[in-house]
């Protein structure tokens, strides 16, 4: 039964993961902070954001990897430095910050609809 009770450590880690990964994703897509680049025509990977070689370059996989990595680090850091925050604060942060990040990501796509 004990494993079904809301534990502060799990809540802190996964809330921080959700917050950091979603915010980092917005920065990654805007500043191209891709952990790697995929060249689909060549079926090759390059470390970091690299320009297209033959055919287009795909950065989305790299942005996702960057965000997951950053989220895991953020979750671990939160366990060390911010575990004292009230549980309800983490409960609010865990969905509200990602919701704002989703809206911001959509906002950055407006130029596609105004060309």
């Amino acid at each position, binding site marked *: 039964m004990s494993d079904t009770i*809301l534990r502060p450590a799990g*809540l802190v880690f996964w809330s921080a993961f959700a917050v950091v990964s979603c915010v980092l994703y917005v920065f990654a897509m805007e500043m191209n902070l891709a952990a790697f680049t995929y060249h689909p025509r060549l079926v090759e990977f390059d470390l970091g954001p690299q320009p297209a070689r033959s055919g287009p370059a795909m950065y*989305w996989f790299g942005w996702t990897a960057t965000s997951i990595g950053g989220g895991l680090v953020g979750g671990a850091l939160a366990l060390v430095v911010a575990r004292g925050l009230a549980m309800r604060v983490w409960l609010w942060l865990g969905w509200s910050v*990602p919701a704002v990040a989703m809206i911001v990501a959509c906002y950055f796509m407006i130029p596609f609809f105004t060309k």
Partner: protein
Amino acid sequence: MWTALLIVHGLLAVLLLGAVTHQALAALWPTRDGATMISRFRRVSAPVYTNTVVIIFVITFIIGAVIYPAYRLNVRTYLQDYRMFWAEGAFEIKEHLAAMGLFLLPLYWYLWRRPVTAAAHETERAQRIAQGALAGLIAVAAWTSFFVGHILNNIRGLFGT
């Protein structure tokens, strides 16, 4: 093979929509009344969908990632050639929301598999709201991805060339 994967991707998305929409509505708009079809839809036991949502989301996401390069090489260039920038932008939104939906899954799973047992009333309320909000955000990501994917898949028939 790409067509088969695309169809499986779409079918799994339909399953995901059913599960996460049931859960989100039951959490955000609960009722005890079962007189109408809508109220029966809202009256379901929300937690039972959690594992299903997580598993289907992850599988659908992986298949989407596998077929994404084919879109990048064949479909996106077509959209750019025909200056259908809105469609290109719609797909960008789909990929962003899908990725962020993936990032929410661990917290979503963590909160939904635990009953609301917090001693403090404020924490209990915050947990209920977080459960509903996370299900709602994942539902938004799933619905947006589904609509965009469906429109792009049919774009030549819908909008011609």
